[in-house]
């Protein structure tokens, strides 16, 4: 078996993983990045709309600063985030954006003079100042007080990731693509690396690092309908959970994006609404202006998704062979705008819907989009439970997003957290000698080897793909946008049955040569179901509504009892359920809980004087 040694092992070569590797390389340390796909194909490349940083260059962003960005983020999170982290983030974001510009991103720039823009379907005029000409521009996104989202057309994630990988190539960072981490190697105290499977040869490998980073992205593909890429299975969270020592923070905080296209759930960016697109119903009438007079289409994602679901439920959806949906209208933005600032959207509509967004409406419906939860870390990115283990990006619960992430904040998170966590890892690595205990390594590898042999020789009858689909259905139908006791209880029970069944898998393809895709799915399925159980059980237990977690039977945000973060552990493989613990979301309360200014206003106030000035601020 091949064994690789390095200083920093990055599991994941998306934006977060690569940014950390770049920081390590800049600090003089070796790293190896593992990735299931070539790094530039990581899901970061699919992000379209943009990333937030309070540069305040354009006229609609004037007066923006980290304070405002911080406040927007905390409100967006429904006070579920770590405010210390949010502050750090808001302050670093402008530097991170400029650094990316320095490395080569072709950010869209301020064009001086008059131009028109649309908001909520109406046309307005703005004048950009000549002295800001050529500075990095920004567009409008949901839940923000200012235009703050820096962008390159609607390929922001793509340009960010390509530029980041250019740095990786320049610095000579090693990348092993088509390698999938299966398990962490640890002795109960320190993490030493991972056991991985090479997806070219099918062989197991050991990767040993003085520090290990989990940056495997989100776990949207647990759900049936998700905007995520097909490899977003949540491997990183699953292998961390699997240790029994590392908790998943806020697993129940799952974001649905308002505009997945029907039927394929491919995302069309929030930039569509940011640039003035509107949502319409079966009568081709707008409705967000009625439900949310202030922010209208640009309320935060959780809020818009809920109103859309509500609107469909009261019969205003457009019937189709794939169930009811609503319309997104960007026709009034005009061909010129669509062809330059929303060209991926145009392409997606033409290619996947046979529709021309310049003249036709786009069928949309909320779809799973983002996992706010993930491997719980402290503000340095160090995971709870194991020394030498870090996490960053969507895989982590650093906790910038709390119960709802703002659009544009997660691309920003990847490079900001990557920058900060990378520096912390360099500090950790300096002068560190890690002893890789061969017995521990061998044991970890043997365990995976036995799992593989067990599956190959299994006499089980359960079909991998059927179980995976069943899990996706349970989450989608019962742990979706609106949640309630009965559905969630049922979800937990069904998932437990699936978990048992996942131990009796039978493979039809028993080759041990090469990738064997069925074996790959079988190996990760139990971990996926465990993660799904964390989501469902976390949601069942949290009897309040906060951000994206909306309980029909507990519609209020309950700061008195629930201003706390879920920590889900899976202590033993045989356990039927995760163990849930809770912690306060932050030690820093620069912004006491209050109203968001959009969405529901039902709040049960906290009585904790440490976090709350007794009377909540309105506004």
């Amino acid at each position, binding site marked *: 078996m091949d064994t690789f040694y390095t200083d920093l092992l990055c599991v994941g070569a998306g934006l977060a993983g690569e940014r950390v590797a770049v920081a390590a390389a800049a600090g003089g340390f070796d790293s190896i990045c593992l990735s299931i796909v070539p790094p*530039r*194909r990581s899901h970061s490349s699919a992000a379209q709309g943009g990333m937030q940083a309070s540069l305040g260059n354009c006229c609609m962003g004037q007066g923006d600063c980290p304070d405002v960005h911080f406040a927007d983020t905390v409100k967006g999170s429904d006070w579920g985030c770590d405010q210390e982290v949010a502050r750090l983030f808001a302050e670093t974001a402008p530097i991170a954006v400029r650094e990316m510009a320095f*490395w080569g991103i072709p950010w*869209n*720039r301020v064009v001086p003079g008059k131009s028109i823009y649309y908001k909520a379907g109406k046309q307005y005029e703005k004048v950009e100042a000549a002295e800001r*000409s050529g500075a990095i*521009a920004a567009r409008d996104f949901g839940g923000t007080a200012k235009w703050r989202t820096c962008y*390159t057309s609607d390929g922001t994630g793509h340009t960010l990731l390509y530029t980041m990988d250019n740095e990786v190539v320049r610095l000579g960072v090693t990348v092993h693509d088509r390698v999938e981490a299966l398990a962490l190697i640890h002795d109960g105290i320190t993490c030493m690396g991972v056991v991985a499977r090479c997806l070219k040869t099918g062989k197991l490998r050991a990767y040993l690092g003085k520090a290990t980073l989990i940056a495997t992205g989100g776990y949207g593909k647990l759900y049936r309908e998700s905007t995520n890429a097909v490899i977003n299975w949540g491997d990183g969270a699953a292998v961390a959970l699997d240790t029994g020592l590392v908790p998943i923070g806020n697993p129940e905080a799952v974001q649905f994006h308002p505009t997945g296209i029907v*039927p394929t759930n491919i995302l069309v960016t929030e930039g569509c609404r940011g640039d003035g697109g509107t949502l319409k119903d079966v009568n081709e009438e707008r409705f967000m202006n009625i439900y949310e007079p202030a922010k209208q289409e640009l309320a935060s994602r959780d809020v818009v998704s809920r109103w859309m679901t509500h609107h469909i439920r009261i019969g205003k959806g457009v019937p189709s062979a794939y169930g009811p949906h609503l319309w997104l209208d960007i026709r009034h933005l005009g061909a010129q705008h669509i062809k330059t600032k929303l060209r991926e959207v145009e392409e997606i509509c033409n290619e996947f819907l046979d529709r021309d967004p310049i003249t036709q409406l786009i069928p949309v419906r909320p779809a799973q989009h983002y996992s706010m939860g993930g491997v719980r870390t402290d503000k340095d990115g160090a995971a709870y439970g194991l020394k030498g283990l870090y996490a960053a990006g969507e895989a982590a619960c650093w906790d910038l997003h709390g119960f709802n992430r703002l659009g544009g904040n997660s691309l920003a998170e990847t490079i900001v957290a990557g920058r900060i966590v990378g520096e912390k890892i360099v500090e950790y690595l300096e002068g560190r000698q890690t002893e890789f205990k061969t017995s521990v390594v061998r044991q970890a590898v043997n365990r995976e080897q036995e799992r593989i042999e067990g599956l190959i020789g299994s006499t089980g009858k359960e079909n991998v793909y059927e179980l995976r689909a069943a899990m996706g259905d349970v989450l989608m139908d019962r742990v979706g946008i609106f949640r309630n006791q009965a559905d969630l209880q049922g979800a937990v029970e069904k998932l437990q049955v699936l978990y048992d069944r996942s131990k009796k898998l039978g493979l039809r393809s028993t080759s041990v040569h090469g990738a064997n895709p069925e074996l790959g799915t079988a190996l990760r399925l139990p971990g996926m179901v465990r993660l799904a159980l964390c989501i469902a059980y976390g949601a069942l237990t949290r009897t309040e509504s906060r951000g994206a977690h909306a309980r029909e039977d507990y519609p209020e945000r309950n700061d008195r009892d629930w201003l706390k973060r879920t920590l889900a552990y899976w202590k033993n493989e045989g356990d039927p359920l995760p163990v849930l613990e809770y912690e306060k979301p932050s030690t820093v309360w620069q912004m006491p809980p209050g109203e968001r200014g959009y969405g529901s206003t039902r709040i049960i106030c906290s009585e904790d004087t440490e976090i709350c000035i007794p009377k909540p601020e309105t506004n």
Partner: protein
Amino acid sequence: MSGGVTMGRTLKFNIFRFNPEDPASAPRMDAYFLEETEAMTLFIALNRIREEQDPALMFDFMCRAGICGSCAMMINGRPDLACHTKTKNLPAEITLMPMPVFKLVGDLSVDTGTWFRAMNEKVQSWIHTAKRFDPGQEEERMDNALAEEIYEMERCIECGCCVAACGKANMVPENFMGAAAFNRIARFMIDPRDERNNDEYFEVVGNEDGIFGCLGLLGCEDTCPKNIPLQDELGMLRRKMGFSQVKHLFRALLPGKKMA
């Protein structure tokens, strides 16, 4: 995913099968049949074949939205992204082959990762500058029109279609840089942040493996799923690289002058 109204056609898929890791495997074509459904793409079709008929079938998908470049393959002889290819635009018999030039991983899956990493190293795909990043400084200004021009070239998704479609790359798979590399060079050439001069670019592409090895076959231009203006970029590159050398020629020929 498999839901949807059937369209009345039974599709026949002839799919290349070979697992180079398995000593018992030999290259062959396998046939599969599927009822066509509404809005069916090759992404949907291949996943159904794997889940329902042949769980060993190897292929690559990621974004399933035409933006990550994972799923390029030869579809009835032409390279294209499988995920954005609708079956309704294809005949009832569909032949799927892995892309040539790239190393075969298995069945329809090829190793584009190694190839593109080498490409990026070869063209030194990064901004070359003597400056250092100063976190306290504002960003350098840039004209928005130029930013958009750079983005136009930056849109390449490294799918490899242009390489598979190139006769030259098929003839000399080990050496020829391919249109994606030329596009990348062109992208840095117009970027004022990159301080490389023409001679430095020439060092990278001014040779038989580079732009002067390109035969102008335009298979790249005609297949690029992102519609990158490869023809125009390659023309610009050949002109710049070719004509800029004429002055060196004159300098070398002029008596009394040292080559410098």
